């Protein structure tokens, strides 16, 4: 297939960027989206032009490295799919595809399509854990957790920290990401002793990192490659209330 690409090129965080046009001839519909970009890059390099920089690693939809706004959608048009798992068969011969980085104040652009999402790590450091030193743990089966609760916690824990929810949100809010971790821990007995401290710490750090506030439009849920549900945000809000009034 033949594709027309409009790709955001930007040399560094402080430089101004712009779209540049490329044409890819002979892409295969069985290629993944990132393989199509590899294919483009090989041809650029052979001509001595700089390769387009994009983040990726596992290419299996689990590491959360890949990003990209594809025609205005974080991770492209297919629901529940990270960019690395998107295949060219979802596009048509002759299509024009606009490719941009995830845009948010808290995610500065490093180069081209690569952004810095370490703000998420700092939010995690502010409470996304159970305080348990190695060697301190009780026998695993002494903590009983119902199958359904464990599965619910697993659904929240499936977040890959990609930041698509932030990119999708007009306020660049990180609520879906934060709520997924808060929910996982709030559902499990292991998370109980620190639940108030955790939610307060993570939310305060989120605000400090310049993420916007949540206005419940649900764009995040629609963009999330792991289909993390809005009910996590509702749970976070309850946890916040509980932390304010109960603790």
């Amino acid at each position, binding site marked *: 297939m033949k594709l027309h690409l409009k790709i955001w090129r930007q040399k560094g965080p402080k430089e101004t960027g712009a779209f540049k046009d490329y044409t890819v001839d002979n892409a*295969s519909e*069985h290629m993944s989206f*990132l*393989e199509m970009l*590899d*294919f483009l*890059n*090989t041809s650029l*390099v*052979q001509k*001595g032009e*700089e*390769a387009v*920089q994009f983040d*990726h*690693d*596992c*290419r299996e939809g*689990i*590491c*959360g*490295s890949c990003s990209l706004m594809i025609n205005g959608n974080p991770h492209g048009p297919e629901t529940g*799919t990270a960019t690395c*798992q998107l*295949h060219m068969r979802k596009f048509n011969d002759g299509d024009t595809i606009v490719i941009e980085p995830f845009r948010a104040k808290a995610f500065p652009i*490093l*180069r081209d399509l690569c952004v810095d*999402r*370490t703000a*998420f*790590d700092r939010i*995690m*450091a502010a409470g*996304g*854990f*159970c305080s*348990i*030193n*190695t*060697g*301190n*743990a*009780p026998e*695993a089966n002494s903590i*009983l957790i*119902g*199958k359904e609760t*464990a*599965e619910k*916690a*697993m659904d929240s*824990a*499936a977040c*890959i*920290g990609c930041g698509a929810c932030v990119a999708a949100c007009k306020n660049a809010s990180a609520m879906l990401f934060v709520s997924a971790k808060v929910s*996982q*821990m709030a559902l*499990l007995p*292991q*998370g109980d002793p620190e639940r108030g401290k955790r939610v307060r710490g993570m939310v305060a750090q989120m605000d400090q990192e310049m993420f916007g506030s949540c206005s419940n439009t649900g764009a995040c849920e629609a963009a999330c490659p792991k289909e993390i549900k809005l009910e996590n945000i509702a749970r976070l809000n309850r946890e916040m209330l509980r932390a304010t009034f109960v603790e």
Partner: protein
Amino acid sequence: MLDSKIPSGPIEQKWNNRKFEGKLVNPANRRKHTVIVVGTGLAGASAAATLGEQGYRVKVFTFHESPRRAHSIAAQGGINAAKNYQNDGDSVYRLFYDTIKGGDFRAREANVYRLAEVSVNIIDQCVAQGVPFAREYGGTLTNRSFGGTQVSRTFYAKGQTGQQLLLGAYSSLMRQAGQKAIEIFPRQEMVDVIVVDGKARGIIARNLVTGELTAHTADAVILATGGYGNVFFLSTNAKQSNASACWRAYKRGAYFANPCFTQIHPTCVPVSGDYQSKLTLMSESLRNDGRVWVPLKAGEKRGPNEIPESERDYFLERMYPAFGNLVPRDIASRAAKRMCDENRGVGPTGLSVYMDFRDAIQRLGSATIAEKYGNLFAMYEKITDENPYQVPMRIFPAVHYTMGGLWVDYNLMSSIPGLFVAGEANFSDHGANRLGASALMQGLADGYFVIPYSIANYIGGTSLAPVKNNHEAALGSLAESKARIDALMKAKGGQSVDQLHRKLGKVMWEFCGMARNEAGLKGAISSIQKLKDEFANDVRIPGDEHLNSELEKANRVSDFLELGELMCLDALERKESCGGHFREEMQTPEGEALRDDKNFSHVAAWEFTGKTPKLHKEPLTFENVHLAQRSYK
């Protein structure tokens, strides 16, 4: 000489003895010592978090944007532990025995026993961190079976076990980072080890964003940098997984052990075209319910659902009735290759076999199958556009894991004092073949439970004069690293790094893959030598030194070329078949691997000399498990 430093006493007592004999560092003194950890996969994150909790000053490096993105995140199927929750005959001894046998008797008994022993603590630790393992209705933990065993000892979190275990370790790591006990350096790649007076005293790191090279000194360095499967270009490893940290350490004096021991995993999505950038694993857990078959007739043209039962060959069940579809990986992979060699392979290229869930769906219903494997089925469908609930999956073996790695003693210390190696990066526990769900176990065993004792023992028992960043050894390493990058940037050829890497991969897969022979390996070595020249003269890296993926790849592929050659040399030298290393000259009449215990019951540890590497042999003795020809029939 190679001293494995195995503690005295009966095997059940060795680890206890070591813990008791080992030196300690008093809590108040720990913060005076800096430890560098390279890598934040299961092994690195767990080691760093634990050392941080204990009070050491820890610096953590990863080339990833965030510690949570390490390759461990992609592990699917599960983690083993000898809990015997299923009451089906498991024990520490059985896990030890299965691992030694599964590794085809090429691992150290003492290390493996310790691994089995601490496996039970790992599960406790992970549960306490909030890892949402799968559970029974009554609230207890549940298990599944993996290959090479007859008990059910694998713990899992859907098909995302690696993700959940890594996020657990990562959360502990971030807790320490929040308390300023650990400093994290993301997007920084280690490019050299600083060696002072024969001891590892730091690293040179390259900031991938700015291109800057910096020396960081420390009292000990831990490499937890993962495996080197990407030598083959196509593998199930994450795209950026590489061997550079270990290779640079090798060039500074750390021995490389059993480099030719690579694992080819039987159940991966087959190659579909020459643009392919990586291969995707379909977890071994699928073999609990999926039946592997090919058509009886060579050159069969009908689709799978049109082939009646009587014309199907469930070859694993036929050849290995005792273990059936759950034979170890090396055996399943070779059997699949044999079917394709007999022209009974399926799919457009003839290079795949079926893994069929029809019977399991009939027995358990699609809802149950979806609950167990839903995300794997969805992943398969995204890649192939075929629905595995209706048509059998097509699978083929692919490079997956490297059992070889830097040589370490019982304390996980390499042949450079002060340089420790944990996780897939070391060679220690899996012999010539790793059993499924044992890599996660080993990574966490090393990081949570072994490394902390080893570091205390080393720091407590060694006099370490302070070393500054501007020490001449640091400046020397810095200058060499800079010269290397400059040389790469200067080349103005016509090929991209990927193009050259693919060529290396083809040679390795063809001649150092599932089957190896003398002529092939010799030819491969000379092809690789030519490729090295081609790389030096014809690679092209446009752009500058800041955030440049082409430069990152070139830096890594130049090491893969050298390592690939060593792998072939090691494979040539080991004139026996064992586990994943199959020398065609050495097989039983039934085509199984034929070991030569008289001549090859040793670890092959290679020393860098600048010319032909020097081979050191660490003899392996089996005092607890009886050496026998492996049988899964």
